[in-house]
């Protein structure tokens, strides 16, 4: 079958009102689901899954993909407006999005988030369509040793999001690594730091930790100083993202999109590390380096491009290999199986109409995302105008509901509040929360892949340098660490000079 025949077959499959309606509804549901704190994109997809049982396969899958894409963007809305990531992938958006909202630039930040998301979405979808086969075989060359070096390199992001003090960032990261060890040991299956409580056997719930760390400290601060915000106008302002902003951030957006495509095509990493990596790369290369973390629009653009770049690319291992890349694609693969479809190389031969139907649907989904996103921003941006004394309690209620609903477990709500106090203390002592989060996500991956590598080689460390991919990441890591140390030394020297001047 020629390319045009395949395209026509795909078009005949999706060229009906139900498919596009499903996609449209999916994106809308996703944006709203993602925008509700605690109800992550993962949960929105999981809740939509049962509705697809009775649908045509392609309609159901398009609905789920719509929810997924909408959810990843929707998560940025509360991240910017109320400092609560709606979905883990949008944690990096908080770093600059929330300071922008504080400055009365919520509309501009939201607009940039949407433009960056849609651009990244298009790049990601095109990569899926054009390079699926190539990227999939590349992804299969990632065994535990390659993963280990990639994650090790990713940990250097911590330096990029530590703010003023690398030491405080490292402290935060250590705390994250420590808490990530709770749960069952991967290799021996023994309990670690569970204190005999079955609730701890699964480790701390990620959403509960996330919400606790970011949203709850705001609420506690409000309780401490109920009137601290009075007088600080947080009006939305008239400003909207301008084309000049977009052009200025374009390089970061494209770079972020490709980071997303790259990390998305490798099973097992997910969108949050990609957003952080994209953000730290943007910061590293930006002229306004010191403005990052204080409301730099390029930071919002980079992190949103990083997480949406993953969305299309995670379908590469899913469709080309039949391997789910993260929790969300694991649910979507379930939808394929329910309809008796088996993703993998054969699907490109047996069900080529479905593959091309999906491709057409994905292209259209970017347009829908832009459309629905614009409407959603217009609606949600008024949240910034709601007085804090009303907004904050409402956020608290949503957080409790959301965290409970993730696993129907009240223990998670407790975890959220405890982490809230930890987060509050961290804010009081100027310890940044982002390194904690990165370490919490990457720590277990680092440990698991290291131990799997050691099992593979019979504890021979040489396996960690077994091929070009590992060499590549080792050298990247070394280069980055050297750069960080040099910057640190320079800062200390500079600091010594100024303090010396003060003494004289």
């Amino acid at each position, binding site marked *: 079958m020629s390319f045009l025949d395949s395209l026509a077959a795909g078009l005949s499959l999706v060229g009906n009102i139900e498919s596009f309606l499903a996609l449209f509804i999916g994106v809308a549901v996703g944006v709203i689901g993602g925008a509700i704190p605690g109800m992550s994109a993962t949960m929105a997809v999981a809740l939509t899954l049962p509705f697809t049982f009775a649908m045509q396969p392609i309609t159901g899958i398009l609905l789920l993909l719509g929810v997924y894409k909408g959810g990843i963007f929707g998560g940025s809305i509360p991240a910017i407006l109320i400092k609560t990531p709606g979905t883990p992938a949008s944690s990096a958006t908080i770093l600059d999005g929330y300071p922008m909202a504080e400055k009365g630039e919520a509309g501009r930040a939201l607009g940039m988030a949407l433009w960056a998301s849609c651009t990244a979405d298009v790049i990601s979808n095109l990569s899926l369509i054009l390079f699926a086969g190539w990227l999939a075989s590349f992804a299969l060359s990632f065994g535990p040793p390659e993963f280990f070096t990639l994650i090790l390199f990713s940990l250097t992001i911590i330096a990029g999001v530590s703010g003023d003090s690398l030491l405080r960032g490292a402290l935060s990261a250590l705390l994250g690594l420590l808490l990530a060890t709770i749960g069952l040991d991967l290799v021996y299956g023994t309990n670690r730091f569970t204190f005999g409580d079955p609730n701890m056997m699964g480790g701390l719930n990620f959403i509960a930790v996330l919400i606790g760390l970011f949203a709850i400290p705001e609420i506690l601060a409000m309780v401490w100083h109920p009137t601290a915000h009075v007088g600080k106008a947080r009006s939305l302002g008239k400003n909207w993202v301008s084309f000049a902003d977009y052009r200025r951030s374009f390089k970061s957006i494209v770079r972020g999109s490709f980071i997303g495509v790259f990390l998305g095509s490798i099973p097992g990493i997910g969108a949050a590390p990609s957003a952080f990596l994209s953000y730290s790369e943007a910061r590293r290369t930006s002229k306004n380096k010191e403005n990052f973390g204080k409301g730099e629009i390029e930071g919002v653009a980079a992190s949103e491009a990083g997480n949406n770049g993953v969305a299309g690319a995670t379908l590469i291992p899913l469709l080309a290999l039949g391997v789910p890349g993260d929790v969300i694609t*694991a649910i979507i693969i379930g939808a394929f199986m329910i309809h008796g479809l088996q993703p993998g190389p054969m699907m490109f031969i047996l069900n080529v109409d479905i593959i091309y139907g999906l491709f057409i649907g994905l292209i259209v989904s970017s347009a829908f995302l832009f459309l629905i996103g614009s409407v959603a921003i217009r609606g949600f941006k008024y949240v910034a105008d709601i007085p804090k004394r009303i907004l904050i309690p409402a956020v608290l209620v949503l957080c409790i509901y959301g965290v409970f609903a993730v696993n129907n477990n009240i223990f998670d709500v407790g975890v959220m509040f405890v982490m809230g106090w930890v987060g509050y203390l961290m804010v009081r002592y100027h310890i940044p929360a982002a390194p904690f989060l990165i370490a919490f996500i990457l720590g277990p991956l680092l440990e698991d892949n290291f131990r799997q590598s050691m099992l593979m080689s019979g504890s021979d460390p040489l396996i960690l340098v077994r091929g070009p991919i590992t060499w590549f990441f080792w050298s990247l890591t070394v280069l980055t660490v050297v750069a960080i140390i040099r910057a640190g030394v320079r800062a200390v020297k500079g600091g010594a000079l100024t303090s010396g001047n003060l003494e004289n």
Partner: protein
Amino acid sequence: MSMKTMSAVCALSLGLAGAAFAEYPERPINMVIPYGAGGATDISARTIAEPLGAAVGKPLVMANVTGAGGATGSVAVQNAKEDGYTMLFARVGSHSVNPAMKATLPYGLDDFRFVTVYEINPVACAVSPSSGITSMDDLVAKVNEGGVTYSSSGVGSLLHLAAVMVLKEFGVEEPLTQTTHIPQKGGGAAATAVLNGTATFLCTNSSAISGFVANKQLVPLMVTTAEPVAGFDVPTAADLGKPALHQLVGWTGIAGPDGLPDDVADKWGAWMATATKDEGFLSKMTERGSVIELMSPEDANAFIERQYNTFRKLVDELGMRIEG
């Protein structure tokens, strides 16, 4: 989910306001799925939920409570009231492999009363085509050479035990020292590990790898059932003269807390008899490679007990029990 929970709470309070001793069930029943959305247990549970809900006559509120290889959700039901309004979709991993392998598990088989087992999943072993292995004999020969590894979805999972049990049956004296276990997080990752060469082989539910087998990404070596499995053109355990391996199958069942009253258990038996006759259910499940085999509450308890004892014996023999 919160909407469903809310409606459940509303219905619950309404139910309490009405006749307190009316016939079971007078309100929606909470069904706990101890594994994540889109997984084998989840799909199976949600497929049976449709005809089952019709048979019960009251809504079934499905909730995924995940974590610790199914232990978190199982504990939630273990500690629930024994009134039949909180039931569990129990699975081979959470209710026969885990109890057999883990000394620290906060529950045992005695903490549950099974009302049915309705689905059996054959177990298949497979390798990657690049390994050059095409039969169990090849695999065993490779094991004796050394350096063979196998992947699983985690320590104490069915996949972990299955690989060891199969090797042992095929005459490998010390499967724990002659091969290396490379645990992964989840079944998808376990299959990927064989695909990308991290591990040599895996033994898992046939439905989990039927896609890879159809796509020729994995080469199947055997299935553990007596009957052949569609899509798997390989010898069965019976063909290979290893009838002991018939015990090694996956299953899904429904259980309540230990003190579940007899009349409730009987009701579930009757409902399941109706639900599993549903045409749509049967065709969907068999399409995915499951064998629908309805067991009465008594049969289900005996079946699980037998499997548990087989696994426990093997675990004790090899010293695989996890104490820490």
